């Protein structure tokens, strides 16, 4: 049996109880798209990007897709995971079964990936409905969103295993919000001085934004593979650390 799958089953059973929250998570990225993409887009109109002019909404949308993946996963693997780990003690009983730390980590991450797959597909369809997609390459944005989710999920699980109390959670925002604001989602990197642009290029969210934007705009380059590899490694390393830490916390 694939042990992590059992934890996914459990989460699905719990989620069946409150479908409203499941749906509400989808609303935010759409609101962002409408207000910033179209609302502010009315003020920006078009911008130059990689040699072609792009309506602002089309420029912003792929970034929002990736941001949504990052934020939704980050919430799963920080707040929700911490509450289950420390307060609900959901995993204490699990550790008495054949499942171990690695199964818990992989299981939670898999569940998050499934959620993100649903959200991302829905958001991509929304983008199509708003007329923001003109290339079949855009389908590639879905695996990119999953890669982003994998990266932040693995790293987030590892980070959460080090947290002692809810006071540590502001650090989650410290990691997410600057990336959200400055990774090229809302304006291109050529707005930055050289040194700043270099720093941004190293950030994980930027990998996803860049890759997704290239695909959605129909201008893929080989660099996408590099971006995805970065995300895959980040997630894998985080997952490894998280598995060991969970074992150490729950089976000392």
């Amino acid at each position, binding site marked *: 049996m694939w042990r992590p799958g*059992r*934890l996914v089953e*459990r989460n699905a*059973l719990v989620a069946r109880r409150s479908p409203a929250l499941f749906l509400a998570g989808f609303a935010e990225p759409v609101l962002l798209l409408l207000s910033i993409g179209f609302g502010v887009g009315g003020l920006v109109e078009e911008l130059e990007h990689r040699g072609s002019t792009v309506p602002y909404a089309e420029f912003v949308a792929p970034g929002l897709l990736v941001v949504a993946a990052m934020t939704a996963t980050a919430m799963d693997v920080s707040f929700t995971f911490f509450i289950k780990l420390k307060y609900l003690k*959901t995993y204490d009983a699990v550790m008495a079964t*054949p499942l171990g730390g690695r199964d818990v980590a992989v299981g939670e991450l898999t569940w998050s990936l499934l959620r993100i797959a649903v959200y991302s597909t829905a958001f991509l369809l929304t983008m199509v409905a708003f007329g923001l997609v003109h290339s079949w390459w855009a389908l590639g944005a879905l695996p990119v969103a999953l890669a982003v989710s994998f990266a932040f999920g693995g790293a987030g699980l590892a980070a959460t295993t080090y947290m002692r109390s809810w006071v540590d959670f502001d650090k989650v925002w410290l990691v997410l919000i600057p990336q959200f604001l400055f990774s090229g989602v809302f304006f291109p990197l050529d707005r930055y001085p050289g040194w700043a642009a270099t720093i941004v290029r190293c950030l994980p969210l930027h990998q996803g934004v860049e890759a997704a934007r290239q695909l959605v705009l129909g201008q893929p380059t080989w660099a996408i593979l590099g971006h995805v590899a970065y995300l895959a490694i980040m997630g894998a390393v985080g997952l490894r650390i998280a598995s060991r830490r969970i074992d150490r916390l*729950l*089976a*000392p």
Partner: protein
Amino acid sequence: MFGVTRNAAGVLVGESVASGLMPEQPSPLRAPAGGGALIEARDLRKSFGDFVAVDGISFSIERGEVFGFLGPNGAGKTSTMRMVACASPPTGGVLRVLDMDAATEGPAIRARLGVVPQEDNLDTELSVLDNLLVYGRYFGLERGLLRRRAEELLAFAQLTDRARDRVDPLSGGMKRRLTIARALINQPDVVLLDEPTTGLDPQARHALWERLYALKRDGVTLVITTHYMDEAEQLCDRLVVMDGGCIVDEGSPRQLIERHVRREVVELRFLVEADKAAAAVLVESLSDHVEVLADRLLLAADDGDATAAAVHAAGVRADAVLVRRASLEDVFLRLTGRTLED
């Protein structure tokens, strides 16, 4: 509830067997009777940094018996149990459970165990029934079989009418019953219970003991930790007395009592320290072992009444005199100089 009945062949079996809850075998047992103990530990150690919780203990547990770890809080019982449950890696020594190495084959061993922890750790986000189903799925049980078993276990735990309820509103006794039912979902070879009746009222305790007897009759091996000497005496076939991470002695309850104390004890209670001290001198010759506690003197005696009479004849006037049978508490006191409640 677990009782005894006859199965189709007329053989006396636990009701649980007849209902299909347990496999169709009269006790004992599931696996072929091979040589070797079910659980075997040699020089088992567990330390947390500098603190040594379990200091090189050795024991073996046979199939089908009820085995107890008796000792005060902090003796290392829970740490030992967690190692046997493969929920904590041993720091040193050898531990073999069900003929597998605990250090390397944890998941396979856990698949054959049932664990009832000291504090209930039910899944509060799921209903009562879902707790059983989800837990069974962690063991890889197939859904149809799982449903049937879960329903039987709910009946056993007398929680059938609460199947769809959340766990939080249940009483402490109900939660404990559910936890035990959950531990049986995979038909384990061994059930580990850590302080099973702590925090329960006397009625619930006795009801629980009864269920544990029934499990034993069905051939399930039980390993219990407890600091209640009545629980150890009532339930355990054999036990091990632990203190400070070491095993101080082992044997059946009766063997331990015969080995270390006389049949009866005369308790003399004194409100005034000086009276007690004076009495201690006077009774010295009346018993081959006098234990001096904070407010009492305990005299070992083969015939308690006779000794009590002799004490009275010697001019000792205690505030209260009690003649009772010797218990494991006295054994522990003799072995370690402390009471189990310390």
